[in-house]
């Protein structure tokens, strides 16, 4: 569950949206620090129906899957079988990993920018 309140831990939902003020100490000059509110936990809804953009993205991934992957590697799901954002993400991740199998390199824990 997305929990916007657990700010100091490795918070779900925090990885890509983390902002840190550590940069104030790295440069000379005058800085204005601006606080960015975090969304409420209720904002997260992976069961939300996939919207028109995700539906188009699904069609394109299905197209690429059919064009590039041998049958034994294909996921088998059709875009019309996928209804929620979480289901879309799961399918897109599977096809992305097959199309772009590079290993994800994670930043060091101190990379909190």
């Amino acid at each position, binding site marked *: 569950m997305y929990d916007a309140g657990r700010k100091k831990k490795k918070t779900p939902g925090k990885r890509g949206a983390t902002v840190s003020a550590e940069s104030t100490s790295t440069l000379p000059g005058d800085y204005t620090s601006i606080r960015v509110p975090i969304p409420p936990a209720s904002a997260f809804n992976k069961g939300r129906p996939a919207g028109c953009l995700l539906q188009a993205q699904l069609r394109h991934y299905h197209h690429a899957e059919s064009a590039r992957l041998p049958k034994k590697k294909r996921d088998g799901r059709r875009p019309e079988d996928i209804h929620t954002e979480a289901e879309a993400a799961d399918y897109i991740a599977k096809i992305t990993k097959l199309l772009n199998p590079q290993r994800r390199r994670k*930043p060091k824990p101190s990379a909190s920018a």
Partner: protein
Amino acid sequence: MPPGLDALKHIVVLMMENRSFDHMLGSLKAVNPLIDGVDRTLWNPDTQGNQVFAQPLAQFQGQLDPDPDHAFPAVDQQIFNGDQSNPRVASMQGFVENYYTQQQDVAHSQKIMYYFAQDQLPVLTSLALNFAVFNRWFSSIPGPTLCNRAFAHYGTSFGQVGMNVFYPQGKSIYERLQDAGHTAKLYYYDQQSSSLEVVNLLQHQPELFATYDQFIADCKSGTLSDYSFIEPNYSDHDNDDGAQLASDQHPDHNVQAGELFIASVYNAIQSNPALWASTALLVVYDEHGGIFDHVPPPGCVPDGYSAGPADTQLSYTFNFDRLGVRVPAILISPWIPKGTVVGTDRVFEHASIPNTVTNHFIGPYPAATMREKAAQTFLDLLSLPVMRTDSVVFSE
């Protein structure tokens, strides 16, 4: 060459989703009258003939549900409101009536006129007021996401006005740069969100892509490519790090999550002094998402394609000779004078991105479309003789 341009080694573009200029930045008109924003005097008629005035009542989520229609016919109504005269007048009076068609709810349709107050969007408005905000950056097509994003990648949508841009013949900005010995990267948020450029780039050139984690690492290590294009998270989902909130700001995703993401991109660049001094960051939205803006889109140089009635779903052929609805765009660099407002006499669109990047890193590119060649470039905004030492930083 101005010292800022001399120092410029990296251009980064973050393209967000589906919000109009007035909706996101229009409130800044009250702060700086040079910003061509919105106020409570602007209105659209509703289906009962009432004047619906713009108001600073936008909410972060839950208000624009269902997603406002932004397919080609819907945008045509939003801009022209059914005008069939010749030439037609882009009145920008059809937003409320168009939104009404989705729920037949008069009160709900009026929400398409709502905009954010300045203090609701501290990241976007701070960046706009501290760096350069564009008064006239338009989406490239009066239509949806993918054809508009194609202009950022290729300088054309190859005749498409919808969501299918398959197998283009022209070279993307990434291929152009690589062919010329430069480096380029598309960063998508994670594997679950991935890229909207799968059919053309990801499946053929996966080496161009990396995740947002890698962008953060590249900024920290000073190994950013010459050109980087960042895609936000397009969905609420789980990954190995837990729940991930969509950060693209596409209705009805949470707008504050997008604010955090923009801040994250900015901080990643700004926190590396060498990178900060040598990078220009453009934050721009792909299209307006069906949400009200008051500036009529102007004409533009055609790119040689046309889309017939079967594609436009209207009775006429579109010759790619006018732009889509205005979107927020902000250019960020310590070489830009604080509070720059790019005037109404300069019109930009997404073809400005490949034209600018190509011109800066490669030089003239004869194979570009006429449309791209005619698109304004924006690096002249890095005009300061000495780099600024003031800035903003964002924290939670």
